[in-house]
């Protein structure tokens, strides 16, 4: 019987495993930039019944709230108006109640952010963009729409062709409740085919203009035609 040696004995040769664990972790993390989202989508696909069940109690529900100014706009029903102007026969100014009185539609669609997060199965309620525009009677020379947010100076554009996609809407309800402040109360644009930055929040105006310009993020280098999976460096 011998005393255990302070140093390594012949049968317990020390190995430098630490650097291996370190390098493997770093390498795995860096390489996940290429496979992380696919893996995550796979995992959420498998666990989505569970995830959907617990999503309501999770704090974020998958959303992140982006603002561009120091103050998130506040919706005041007494003073808020949605103004339709520009190249129209009849400029229109809708109160919140007048907006709610237009034909109501609902849809379930997926919301994609250009930074990589996605929220599936969002239940939107609101009005078709076409029903709102029809009241102002756009002129034939207008080939684009400018969406103006209460969050100055946020604007973005859609061509009239893009804006006439079947599931483009102005949403004033989300998941069965009035649109929450952080999601753009009282009403936001929804165009599921495009990344979130085209889905202007806190809408206060729509102008019919001759052609599409650059919106807030497009001035910072993002694509005007923000098709999900086919723009901003994604896809071909």
């Amino acid at each position, binding site marked *: 019987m011998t005393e*255990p040696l*302070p140093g*390594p004995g012949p*049968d*317990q*040769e*020390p*190995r*430098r*495993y*630490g*650097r291996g*664990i*370190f390098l493997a*972790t*770093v390498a795995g*993390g*860096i390489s*996940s*930039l*290429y*496979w*992380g*989202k696919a893996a*995550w989508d796979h995992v959420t696909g498998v666990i989505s019944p569970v995830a959907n069940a617990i999503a309501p109690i999770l*704090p*974020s*529900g998958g*959303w*992140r*709230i*982006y*603002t*561009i*100014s*120091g*103050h*998130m706009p506040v919706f005041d029903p007494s003073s808020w108006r949605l103004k339709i102007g520009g190249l129209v026969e009849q400029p229109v100014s809708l109160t919140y109640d007048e907006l709610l009185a237009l034909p109501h539609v609902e849809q379930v669609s997926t919301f994609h952010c*250009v*930074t*990589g*997060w996605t929220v599936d199965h969002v239940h939107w309620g609101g009005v078709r963009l076409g029903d709102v525009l029809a009241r102002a009677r756009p002129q034939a020379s207008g080939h684009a729409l400018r969406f103006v947010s209460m969050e100055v100076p946020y604007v973005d554009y859609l061509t009239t062709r893009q804006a006439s996609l079947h599931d483009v809407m102005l949403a004033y309800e989300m998941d069965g409740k009035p649109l929450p*402040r*952080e999601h753009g109360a009282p009403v936001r644009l929804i165009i599921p085919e495009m990344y979130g930055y085209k889905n202007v929040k806190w809408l206060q105006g729509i102008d019919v203009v001759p052609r599409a310009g650059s919106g807030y993020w497009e001035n*910072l*280098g*993002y694509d005007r035609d923000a098709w999900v999976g086919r723009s*901003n*460096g*994604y896809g071909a």
Partner: protein
Amino acid sequence: MKPGYVRRFSPVERLLHWANAAGFFFLLVTGLILYLPRLSMLVSRRQTIQGIHFWGGVGWLATLAVVIVLGGRRLLATARELDTFDRDDLRWLRGRGAPQGRFNAGQKINAILTAAFTILFGVSGLLLWFGEQDTRYRFASTVILHDGLMYVSLLLLVGHLYLALIHPATRHALRGMTLGSVSSEWASRHHAKWRPE
């Protein structure tokens, strides 16, 4: 040092630990304001918080770099201890109980993962920041990596805090990280192979 006590962590080791802890908590709080809609709403100054979070992260990495340079050889020796696993460490990891050195095998793995995560937090954070300005730096998975690191780090942190503050058998170790010394009786029970200088 009080009689019956031995020094476990040098001043520079403690400085590195607490600089890392302070930076982590600062980034956790500012990061959660960006991440959780409830908090985003309360604060509602995303640009400002985003700037604070980013520059806080840069400051955190720079501070760690300075401490590591200050620590020089002394920290290199610590890194060597963390790098080395012997048979007893592997036995300990399998839950069989084996005499441990100054760091037990779990502490070694925790330290190694913390170091690796620091690098990954830094890389993914820089990519998020610059990706907002230039599509060449944008990857669909950056945000998943950054968030995933946050979740795993939180789990490690909860375990770490439990062992350091609550678990009766191990919480004496906190003294080593604050005052630098632990009782030699405790050291011989938990770190039998460690020979304090």
